[in-house]
């Protein structure tokens, strides 16, 4: 079909094309030699270089420039949901998804979001471009939510806030800023951390290394290891911290530990970089969950904070978040903001409007804001209840005397069970419980009704599989 159509088009081509297209291309497509430098390409992990020599034997009309493109590895988290969907067992349970579900295990659209959207429809607003830095009302609301409206950093206009595409997009803007203004500076990330952090810094060409965080022996925080590794890093590194509800472990430093972390960061002239994806989801209180960020800001430190409204307002799909950079002066903040804009413009020009308007409407209206706080408490409360029930079930059923209290100590959507890969596989293969291979379960996907079943599965996997 292809060669016929090219032959036909050749009929109307200028007389210079006396050779057939086939002949022409055989002459021109000198793959592996001459002007095309495929041979000379450096080892590139993405390219399957073996396929090129095969192509040079065939003078195909439709040869793709991307013949050497290999299949990217599947995303470990999204792959879990796909496997879950394919499972027909009635007992199946999806604890892979980091998205809030009701007790009936249904997605939840917050009432305040519905109200805000109705208001927006009634007003019939237009869909014009936002400025590059995003919706002004949103930027104001988000910074105030994070720091508190009366915080000196806000009053002194020392925060550069730019609307970003949820947490990921905001992190990426920050990474791009680091790459441009601190070339060679490293970002220290916790071991473990959210899987996408590494991808973001890799693609932004920012080097990273890990600091110890999770202690498998205690299923808790390796605080000494964390401090030691932050101390050992070169001066002026960026330290990526989870503001609250650490993903994937659910293990947060205590307030005293946060103070010590701030001490060592100041000592080493590092710069703190917070990822705040769960404000409100940890304790149920938006203010309490911003405690770590506010502690650092109160010390007069400059810091970066990426925010997401995916979980706490259930706006996962709207991609709404922000990057905040706290600076020593309003002038510095203005300059930083201008450079963040310069990074955003060649990425997506300006951010999407819908989510920003929802947040601005919810946070900006006292009634809606209070309603949101109540819904937030309800969601966080459901997770706390589920933790309690799971703990109770585990302690009642497990006669080995193992200490399951880490379930209660951990906070937020996720729990690091301490199950290894083989044990996690057992959870899936035998019990149809879907989770990630690092032993993480999402309590947001667990109902009270399923706690006992899950307890059985965990006990079995823990004791009978190694």
């Amino acid at each position, binding site marked *: 079909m292809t060669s016929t159509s090219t032959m036909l088009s050749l009929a109307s081509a200028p007389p210079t094309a006396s050779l057939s297209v086939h002949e022409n291309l055989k002459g021109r497509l000198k793959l592996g030699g001459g002007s095309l430098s495929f041979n000379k390409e450096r080892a590139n992990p993405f390219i399957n270089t073996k396929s090129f020599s095969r192509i040079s034997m065939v003078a195909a009309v439709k040869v793709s420039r*991307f013949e050497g493109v290999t299949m*990217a590895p599947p995303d470990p988290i999204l792959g879990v949901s796909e496997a879950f969907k394919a499972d027909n067992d009635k007992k199946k349970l999806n604890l892979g998804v980091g998205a809030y579900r009701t007790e009936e295990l249904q997605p939840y659209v917050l009432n305040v979001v519905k109200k805000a959207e109705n208001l927006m429809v009634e007003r019939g607003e237009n869909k014009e471009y936002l400025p590059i830095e995003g919706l002004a009302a949103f930027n104001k609301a988000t910074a105030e939510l994070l720091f508190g409206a009366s915080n000196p950093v806000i009053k002194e206009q020392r925060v550069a806030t730019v609307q970003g595409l949820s947490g990921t997009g905001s992190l990426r803007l920050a990474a791009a800023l680091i790459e441009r*203004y601190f070339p060679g500076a490293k970002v220290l990330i916790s071991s473990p951390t959210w899987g996408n952090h590494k991808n973001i810094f890799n*693609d932004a060409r920012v080097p990273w290394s890990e600091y110890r965080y999770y202690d498998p022996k205690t299923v808790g925080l390796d605080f000494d290891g964390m401090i030691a590794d932050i101390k050992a890093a070169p001066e002026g590194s960026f330290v990526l911290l989870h503001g609250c509800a650490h993903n994937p472990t659910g293990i947060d430093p205590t307030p005293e530990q946060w103070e010590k972390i701030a001490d060592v960061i100041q000592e080493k*002239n590092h710069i703190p970089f917070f990822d705040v994806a769960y404000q409100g989801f940890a304790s149920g209180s938006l203010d309490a969950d911003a405690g770590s960020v506010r502690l650092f800001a109160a*010390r007069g430190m400059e810091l970066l904070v990426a925010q997401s409204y995916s979980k706490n307002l259930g706006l996962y799909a709207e991609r709404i978040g922000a990057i905040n950079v706290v600076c020593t002066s309003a002038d510095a903040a203005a*300059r930083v903001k201008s450079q963040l*804009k310069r990074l955003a413009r060649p990425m997506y020009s300006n951010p999407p409007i819908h989510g920003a308007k929802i947040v601005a409407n919810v946070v900006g209206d006292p009634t809606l804001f209070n309603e949101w706080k109540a819904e937030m408490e309800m969601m966080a409360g459901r997770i706390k209840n589920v933790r309690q029930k799971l703990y109770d079930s585990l302690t009642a059923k497990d006669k080995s005397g193992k200490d399951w209290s880490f379930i209660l100590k951990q906070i937020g959507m996720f729990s690091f069970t301490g199950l290894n890969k083989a044990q996690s596989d057992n959870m899936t293969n035998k019990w149809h419980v879907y989770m990630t291979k690092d032993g993480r379960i999402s309590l947001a996907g667990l109902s009270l009704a399923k706690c006992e079943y899950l307890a059985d599965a965990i006990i079995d996997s823990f004791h009978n599989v190694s």
Partner: protein
Amino acid sequence: MKPKPRINIIMWGFMGSRLTSSTRCMSTSTKALSRFGWWDRVSPAAKDPITGVTEAFLADTNPHKINLGVGAYRDDEGKPVVLQCVRNAEAKIAGCDFINVGRESNATAVGSKLVEESAKLAYGKDANVVKEGAFAGLQALSGTGACRLFAEFQRRFHPESPIYFPDPTWSNHPNIWRDAQVPVRTFQYYHPVSKGLNFAALMDDIKNAPDASFFLLHPCAHNPTGVDPTVEQWREISYQFKEKSHFPFFDVAYQGFASGDLDMDAQAIRIFLEDGHLIGCAQSFAKNMGLYGHRVGCLSVLCADAKQAVAVKSQLQQIARAMYSNPPIHGLLLVSTILSDPETKALWVKEVKVMANRIQQMRSTLRESLEKLASPLNWEHITNQVGMFCFSGLTADQVDRLVREFHIYLTRDGRMSMAGVTTSNVSYLANAIHEVTRYNREASNVC
């Protein structure tokens, strides 16, 4: 700007000594601000040449002000428009409990629907590539996002290859490819004297570029010039691309805005398809659906077969994942709803025509008005050029005068967004243009 490594070390040394003394103070006093600022090295960025115009316009309080800066459609009252088909789609999706993209099967289906419909729009609903699925398609953050995904992809798999842009091109194109670390080149395009296409020079540059180069093409309504090749010229360009094995990447931001006919505006793409090119395409729904703020578009890369398409798509998804994870769903839902419902789609097609017609009318009126004022210059290009923009030929100084004296805002390259012209402001605009050009020394050189 990036400091060179040697300077960096010196800087760190200097800052280190400054810091040690001040941090000893800091750890004891919790309230003291660090005198050293991490961001002292950050200089203020220049304003974006296009959005900077809008910012200046908004700040102006003059009642006669006109915004001819950003390419966003306005109705005859100068007001932004939400298309009726969009309102209908909004009503349909209101109350839809979608909240997860990528994790829920229905959201993935929406994304696939958008890709399918976008491909039909660009390639033709009966195109083989659509039927065979031999293309990698992904929703993107409007045109910019689609271009950036492709630029990153190009860099990943052809790290040595530069991209060739027409001279001139949209001001953000070089930013996008540069930030993706792809070297940028240009090929001749606009002919300032004729205010038309410099076809001979264009063909020379295509021939002289190294084989298998990447080229960015505007298939219709070239931004900023409004100058498009004819169908015959496109055929020649396509043929030469084949000779040179160049990669054609189409930035499709104005499909429907050139002629008012969506298929006609995609002709260049269809010619390349017929000729067997495996092209790439960035599509935006910002202008033709008026969904500017929703950031919805599509990137497609044609592949040798469906299997390769899967591999390419997986790589594109990986690039997107590290940039923003998933695209915003609201715009996706709107576009997919509009394009998959025949009635709503038919309404959309009509509304696109209305927008294109209004712009064409404003072009005629502006040209007539200038001619009636006995302007010494030739203004044919106003009606010869196509799409939203008119490359007026005004100099930067003349533009500055328009801004200062008449409160008419446009970019300094003389590009005017005709979408900002209305029946009530066209006379004022014509008078202003006439004022700043009547003593133009170039009057005698115009052909």
